[in-house]
């Protein structure tokens, strides 16, 4: 089946050329609805390319967001056939079911227009989770000696490559139901810092993630880890925080004493 497309796809000239039925959510904070576009199929075509084609060739008023186009900036995430995805690195072939695509703004964030959401709540929570390095040294000091095989370093490294795309945030039902919930990405970053031996904010982090909407609101439903495009494991990180806060609750692991 893919081969059929391949021959016809490069430049569809006739009506017979392969097209995708693309339903794009149009609207703003006040509401909206899906609108259909027929988009020619291409060999190399990501969901972002589909959206781009629509804006450039079919409806110049369509709004979406992207920057890097290679999975580094985390600004192009949308709901694609009801699943949160980075559109710049999602090949259409892999997601179009029966030649259909439904594209909508990322879930769990306020919509600004069409496919663009307001990511401020996501980042406000990032800060609220104390997911910001707490320096324990300054520019005049040397570099902390940390060996690559140090278990803490390994734990810190596990989630460090998060691109804050908010895909996990969109996937999580707890975020949907609990407006206070800090969400998987912010909590994972907090866990990364907690394991970062150079970070001086161990207690502040545990306090922050113990507040209402903190790590204890997570039900380990795992959608975050399931959808993270970088194969990170926020669920595991949150479990780490739960254990650390539990230990501190029982008087162990207080202060600098990290797991």
């Amino acid at each position, binding site marked *: 089946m893919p081969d059929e497309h391949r021959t016809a796809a490069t430049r569809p000239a006739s009506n017979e050329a392969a097209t995708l039925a693309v339903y794009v*959510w149009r609207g703003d904070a006040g509401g909206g609805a899906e609108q259909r576009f027929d988009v020619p199929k291409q060999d190399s075509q990501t969901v972002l390319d589909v959206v781009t084609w629509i804006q450039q060739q079919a409806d110049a008023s369509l709004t979406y967001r992207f920057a890097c186009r290679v999975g580094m900036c985390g600004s192009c995430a949308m709901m694609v056939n*009801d699943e949160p995805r980075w559109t710049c690195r999602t090949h259409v072939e892999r997601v179009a079911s029966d030649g259909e695509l439904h594209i*909508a703004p990322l879930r*769990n964030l306020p*919509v600004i227009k069409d496919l663009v959401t307001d990511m401020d709540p996501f980042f406000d929570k990032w800060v609220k989770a104390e997911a910001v390095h707490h320096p324990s040294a300054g520019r005049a000091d040397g570099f902390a000696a940390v060996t690559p095989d140090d278990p803490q370093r390994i734990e810190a490294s596990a989630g460090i490559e998060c691109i804050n795309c908010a895909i996990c945030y969109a996937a999580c039902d707890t975020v949907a139901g609990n407006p206070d919930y800090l969400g998987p990405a912010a909590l994972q970053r907090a866990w990364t810092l907690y394991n970062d031996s150079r970070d001086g904010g161990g207690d502040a982090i545990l306090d922050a993630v113990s507040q209402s909407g903190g790590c204890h609101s997570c039900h380990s439903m*795992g959608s975050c880890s399931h959808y993270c495009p970088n194969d990170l494991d926020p669920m595991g990180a949150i479990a780490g925080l739960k254990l650390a806060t539990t230990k501190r609750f029982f008087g162990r692991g207080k202060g600098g004493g990290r*797991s």
Partner: protein
Amino acid sequence: MSGRAGQMAKRRIRGHALWYAHILHRVSGIGLALFLPLHFWVLSLAITDVAALDGFLAFADLPLVKLSEFGLVFLLAVHLFGGLRLMALEWLPWPAPHKTLAAGTLAISAFLSGVFFLQAI
């Protein structure tokens, strides 16, 4: 609710093992919470009226009721092992084969309630 996009939440996101485990745990929890007051009420009958309790227990012998009782034990077992699974996941530093754990939970629960069911009939 956070904007319109919230309303577009659809089923797809939920099609994976851990999400099912979560929802099963939640539904079983609700089920148990609903059943619990009923259960307490029935037992309290013992204070006032042993005969009524006996009547009730006889009623409980009906096949349909048997089946629902089986369901209850099933719920209890599911919730119990689901809960243990969660706590293991949160507190034991395992390199988590989460899905296996979730499936295992269900298997044990099914086995237990199966035993109960067989005993009951």
